[in-house]
């Protein structure tokens, strides 16, 4: 089984994982984000509304991955698959004239969950690298299947016929409306996620990551716990996918290619695997850097690559570890295989 950098799931002392100070910071952050579009327009930064919206969506995606990978210890390399399923749910509905997010997004959540449930049921029989690869396999299958669906554009992709509307028929959401909707839902999802990590379920899940054998012996239904985590993550990924579709009003199979799944994982590791804020941090840092470096040089891969290497060597627990180092957790090594 692949071991992960130490995580939050079993707090060393009874203190709740989110202590008061960060909570304040969180509120501040939220306020800033809400106010941003209003400020942006007057400063001619309106372009960045779209950028931030995209970052927020990715924060959700990486966070959903964090649930399985960070707290469940399940390295899934097929997460982009569920994102794609969510996005294509929107496409299918769009093609029959349903543009209301009130219908499309819940549908995407359900679709993502269903896909995750089905794939998880099979994949969770395997462990470690085998799990990585079987999840990859299913994601790739989804990729090729969607790429061959001619009436949804195949790998040319599909441009949504209309901007999403709040309710069926109602006038369509303009930039900021979509921004606030996305922001609200992501914040909600993130809040639920942070609750999960400290819930009975969250603790049990952390247990299955830290010592599966013992969890069986203690009487935990390990397989079902993992399946639930996997399904929840799939649901959130589905929602994220739907949001991306709305954000780009364009969907193509390329968004479910395995490299996308890998990128999500990379974001999470940068941010901090198994830490509440890991997903958010990772998404922000990665996307901002990418956006910025591209403008600086044609050779923007190199600095990015070097950065990853540096992080791997000197910050293997991710950026979150800087702010929230949790005491007593010695890093797990692959040694003493007993």
């Amino acid at each position, binding site marked *: 089984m692949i071991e*992960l950098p130490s995580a939050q799931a079993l707090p060393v002392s009874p203190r709740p994982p989110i202590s008061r100070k960060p909570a304040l910071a969180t509120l501040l952050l939220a306020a800033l984000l809400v106010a941003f579009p209003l400020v942006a327009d007057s400063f001619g930064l309106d372009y960045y509304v779209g950028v931030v919206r995209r970052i927020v969506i990715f924060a959700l995606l990486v966070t959903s991955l964090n649930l399985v990978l960070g707290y469940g210890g399940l390295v899934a390399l097929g997460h982009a698959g569920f994102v794609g399923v969510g996005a294509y749910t929107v496409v299918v509905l769009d093609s029959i004239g349903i543009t209301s997010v009130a219908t499309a997004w819940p549908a995407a959540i359900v679709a993502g969950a269903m896909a995750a449930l089905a794939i998880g049921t099979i994949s969770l*029989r*395997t462990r470690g690298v085998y799990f990585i690869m079987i999840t990859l396999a299913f994601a790739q299958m989804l990729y090729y299947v969607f790429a061959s669906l001619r009436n949804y554009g195949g790998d040319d992709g599909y441009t949504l016929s209309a901007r999403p509307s709040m309710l069926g028929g109602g006038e369509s959401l303009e930039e900021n409306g979509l921004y606030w909707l996305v922001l609200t839902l992501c914040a909600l999802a993130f809040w639920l996620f942070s609750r999960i990590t400290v819930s009975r379920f969250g603790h049990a899940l952390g247990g299955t990551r830290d010592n599966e054998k013992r969890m069986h012996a203690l009487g935990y239904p390990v397989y079902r716990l993992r399946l639930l985590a996997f399904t929840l993550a799939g649901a959130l990924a589905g929602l994220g996918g739907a949001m991306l579709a709305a954000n780009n009003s364009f969907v193509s199979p390329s968004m479910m290619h395995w490299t996308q799944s890998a990128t999500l994982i990379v974001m999470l590791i940068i941010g901090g695997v198994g830490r509440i804020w890991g997903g958010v941090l990772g998404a922000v840092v990665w996307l901002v850097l990418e956006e910025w470096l591209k403008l600086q040089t044609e050779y923007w*891969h190199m600095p990015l*690559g070097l950065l*990853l290497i540096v992080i*791997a060597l000197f910050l293997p627990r991710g950026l979150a570890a800087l702010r929230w180092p949790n005491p007593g957790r010695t890093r797990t*090594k692959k040694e003493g295989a007993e």
Partner: protein
Amino acid sequence: MSVVFITEQLLNGLGYGLMLFLIAAGLTLVFGIMDVMNLAHGSLFMGGAYIAAQVQVHTGSFALACLMAVILMAIIAVLVEQVLIRRLYKADHLVQVLATFGLILVADDLVKMIWGTSPMMANLPESLSGPVQLLPELYYPSYRLLIIGAGLVVALGLYLLVSHTRVGMLVRAGTSNRWMAELMGVRVARVFTNVFVLGAMLAALAGALMGPLVAVQIGMGEEILIPALVVIVIGGIGSVRGAFIASLMVGVVDIVARAFLPLLLELAIPGPLAADLGATFSALSMYVLMAAVLLFKPSGLFSERST
């Protein structure tokens, strides 16, 4: 469908399988046995291809090209191991993924700086550029026979090395419990360096040999990385025998999906659609195979590693 056609197709399956094995061989050492999740293995492959191509353009000698590719990549591998990889042995897989993913990005830009983005010329050696006649009706590209031969040789050599010499044991020991291995007197650090370099050399060789058959260009490494991983996983991580058999399976399944399935479908449905379905399925086949195998054998065909 004539007998010749079928034999040729099966031969093709074999050839493709061994092609994959050639690429997977180095990975079996580094990932399968040393347990280092080295995504940058594809970059080593690419490096080998580029160097070989470069040397061949200048000297015109294919043999020399292969030799240089292997030697130069070995040197590069030593550096990479000393600077980066050796710091990752103890780290968990995720950190290895992060670092080697970074390595890919760096490698791609380096190649772009040196050789530019347009693909590189890597010609077949004159002597092997044509086909040879195997059966009265059956011509087969002689170069592919070389690939098949190389695949078989590498497979055999690797098998002997891993299962019939101490090296294999020492590496496995060092991997599963480095401290204990050192307590037994094993120079783990040195062994690992050597094995990593050997893996890199195999990757470079694969690159040099594949160059004349495929486009030598940036990203060629990432493309073959996944099939290589699939082969290793189906075979059972750490098992050379497994990887070998798996690569043949993948090859044959792929051929069946591409060559025979469309022909069968054509009997039922219109040509274009049949071809179309065939292509889609051939894209899926490898993954379907892997999923199926793991469904019934959750740790591959011949897993020799206890994870």
